[in-house]
C-alpha cells in the first residue's frame, strides 16, 4: 500500500460511552485528496467517528493515524484537521472577517498577509464584500460558506464535515453540493463528510463507507455501492431494491443456474463464490433494471399492476406476481413512455430482465 493509499488510517477503533458501545471496531483507510463519506442512519456512529478524527472524543481502543502520525493523544487544537460543524458554530460576537481569520491569529502573521488570506477565502466561497457584515445577519447558506472558509484558511490536511448541508432547504442544498465538490477539487484537501442522505453521498463522494449500529458495512465507490452492494442492509439503504430468494439448481463451468420460483430461472456468474447445489441464495434487483411490458413476451413473467406513482422524471409501478409475497417494484423513465403511464391499476403486465441485472448478496 502506498502512503497516499492510507492517508487516514483507522485501526480497530472502538468507542464506548459508559455501557453504550457507539462504535464496535472499525478499520479502514482514507486516501489522500479524496472525498470520503460516512453514510448511515442517525445513531450509527458516523458522527462519533468523525469527532474522534477531530479529537473531540478519544477512542476507547484502536489507533487513528493521520499522514502517518499517531493521533490518539493529540488534542483537537494541535491536530492537522479542521471541522465544519453541523450548526456551523459561527462566532456571534465577530464579523465575517474575524470569523474566517480566527485560526490565523495564533500564527502571528503580519496584518497585511492575514487580510490577503481572508480576502482570498472570501473569494473562494463567493462572499466578496461580506467581510464586514455582522455574523448574526447572515443566511444559512452564507453561514455554511463562512464555516468552510474558516476551516480551509488553515490549509488542514483533512477537512471534516458534519452534515453541513442538513439545515439547508432542498434547492440550496443541491447548489451547495455542486459548490462543495468544486471546492474540494480546487483545494485538493482530503474531505471526510458525514451524512445520512444517501443521494448526497452518491453525488459528492469518491468513496463511501456505509455504517450501521457502530459497524462499517461496506466501503466502496458510489457506483460500486449502488451496482454491487454486498449485503441486504447496504442494498436496502442505498436506493430502492427488490429482494428475491433464489436456489442453486446446478453449477457448470463457473456458471450457476438459480431457480427463482415464480420468476423462473436465471444464469449467474459463479466463479469466485462457492455455490452449493440446493443452497438458498439471497438476490436483489433494482426497480429500473426490470422492464415493464404491456404485452406478453418471450421469457417475461406475468403479473398485475397494483399501484402506480408518478415521481416526475420517473414513474414507479408496484406489480403483484403470483407465487410471490412481496410486490415487485418497477420504475421507468418518463421519456416518451406515456403508454405505460396510462396503464390502469389492476391491468395485466409482464416483467422482463437481463440475468446479470440480479445482484448476488452475501448470506445473512
Amino acid at each position: 500500500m502506498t502512503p497516499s493509499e492510507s492517508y487516514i488510517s483507522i485501526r480497530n477503533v472502538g468507542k464506548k460511552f459508559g455501557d453504550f458501545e457507539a462504535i464496535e471496531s472499525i478499520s479502514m483507510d482514507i486516501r489522500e485528496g479524496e472525498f470520503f463519506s460516512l453514510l448511515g442512519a442517525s445513531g450509527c456512529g458516523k458522527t462519533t467517528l468523525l469527532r474522534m478524527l477531530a479529537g473531540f472524543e478519544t477512542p476507547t481502543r484502536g489507533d487513528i493515524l493521520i499522514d502517518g502520525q499517531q493521533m490518539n493523544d493529540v488534542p483537537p487544537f494541535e491536530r492537522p484537521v479542521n471541522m465544519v460543524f453541523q450548526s456551523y458554530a459561527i462566532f456571534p460576537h465577530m464579523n465575517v472577517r474575524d470569523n474566517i481569520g480566527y485560526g490565523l491569529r495564533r500564527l502571528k502573521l503580519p496584518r497585511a498577509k492575514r487580510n490577503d488570506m481572508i480576502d482570498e477565502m472570501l473569494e473562494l466561497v463567493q462572499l466578496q464584500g461580506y467581510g464586514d457584515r455582522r455574523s448574526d445577519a447572515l443566511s444559512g447558506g452564507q453561514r455554511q460558506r463562512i464555516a468552510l472558509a474558516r476551516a480551509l484558511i488553515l490549509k488542514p490536511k483533512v477537512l471534516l464535515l458534519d452534515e453541513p448541508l442538513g439545515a439547508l432547504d432542498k434547492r440550496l442544498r443541491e447548489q451547495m453540493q455542486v459548490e462543495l465538490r468544486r471546492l474540494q477539487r480546487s483545494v485538493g484537501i482530503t474531505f471526510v463528510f458525514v451524512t445520512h442522505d444517501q443521494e448526497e453521498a452518491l453525488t459528492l463522494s469518491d468513496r463511501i463507507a456505509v455504517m450501521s449500529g457502530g459497524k462499517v458495512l461496506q466501503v466502496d465507490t458510489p457506483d460500486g455501492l449502488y451496482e454491487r452492494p454486498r449485503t441486504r442492509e447496504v442494498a436496502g439503504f442505498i436506493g430502492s431494491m427488490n429482494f428475491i430468494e433464489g436456489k442453486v439448481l446446478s453449477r457448470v463451468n463457473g456458471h450457476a443456474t438459480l431457480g427463482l420460483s415464480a420468476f423462473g430461472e436465471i444464469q449467474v456468474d459463479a466463479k469466485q463464490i462457492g455455490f452449493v447445489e440446493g443452497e438458498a441464495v439471497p438476490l436483489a434487483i433494482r426497480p429500473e433494471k426490470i422492464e415493464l411490458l404491456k404485452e406478453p413476451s418471450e421469457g417475461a413473467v406475468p403479473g398485475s399492476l397494483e399501484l402506480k406513482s408518478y415521481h416526475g422524471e420517473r414513474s414507479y409501478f408496484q406489480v403483484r406476481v403470483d407465487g410471490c409475497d412481496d410486490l415487485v417494484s418497477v420504475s421507468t423513465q418518463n421519456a416518451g413512455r406515456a403508454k405505460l403511464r396510462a396503464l390502469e391499476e389492476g391491468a395485466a403486465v409482464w416483467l422482463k430482465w437481463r440475468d446479470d441485472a440480479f445482484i448476488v448478496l452475501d448470506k445473512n
Partner: protein
Amino acid sequence: MSDAVSTQGSIPPTQTERRNGLGRLIARSEVLRGYLMLSPAMIIMIIGVLMPFLILVAMSFWTRDGFDFDTTLTLTNYGRAIDEPIFGAFLARSFWVSGIATVATVLLCYPMAYYVAFHVHRNKMLWIIMMTLPFWTSYLLRVFAWKVILGYEGVINSSLLTAGVIEAPLEFLLYSQTAVIITLAHAWAAFAILPLYVSLEKIDRSLLEAAADLGDGPTKRFLRITLPLSLPGVISATFLIFIPTTGDYITPALLGGPDGAMIGNLIQLQFGAVNNWPMGATLSIILMLWIAAVALVFLFVTRKSKESLI
C-alpha cells in the same frame, strides 16, 4: 376617526359596532395595548420613584432655615459639597470600597457560575438554589453573622488564638473597610451568580469546540470565546452590585467603624441627626450623577476591551 376605521373594512361592521370606541381603539393598537399592560408598573414608578426624585432634585437647591426650609433656589449646597473636602473624601471612599467589593464579588462568583454552567450536568437548578440559599435570610441578619465571624472574640479570632497562630485578637477584622468589603462581597453574591450563570449557560458549546478545532487551547478559548460572550452577564452583575453598594449605609454603619463609614452614612446623618435635608438631597443627587458617570465609563471600557480580546 370612526369613518377612517370603517373604511378599512377588514373587520365586518357587525363586529365593530358591538364594541365601544375605547375598546375598539385598544383592540386595534399594539402600542396602546402595550401601555395598558405597563400601566400598573408605570403608576407605581411615577408615585414611588419619579415624584420623590423630583422633590429631591428641588430640595437639593433649597437651604435649611432653622427647622424649616428656605425654598429660594440656590447652588449653596453644591458649593459646599465641592468646597468642603469631607464630602469628596467620603464619596471617594464609597467608590473605592464598593468598587473593590464589586470586583471581588464578580471574580469570586464567576468561577462558581462557570462551574455550574459547564461542569454540572444534572440538577443545575438545585445548585443555583443552594448557592442562593444564604440570601433567603434577611440582609441585616447576614451582616450580623459577619459581625460574629469577624468580631474581637469572633469565630476567626478565637480559632486562630486556640490554634496558637496569633497571640492577641486581630483588630483590623472588624470595624474597618476590610470588614465592609468582605460583608458586601458576600451579601451581594446572589446578584452576581444569577446573571453570570445565565450568560454562561447560553453559550453554544459548539463554539468552544470550533475554537479548539481552529487551534486555540483552553486559555485562549476562554479569553476569545467564553469571556466576551459572557460579558453581558459580567456587566449586569457589576451594575447590580456596584450601584446599590455605593450608597449602602447599613453595612458600613454596623461593621465599618470610623474608617469604614461611607457616603450613605453621611447622607443618613443629614436627614437624621444633622437635620439638614437639603444638604442630604444635594449629596444624594451628586452620588447619583457620579454613579451614572462611572457606569458610562465602565460600559465604554468593557466595549473597547472586548474588541481587543477578539
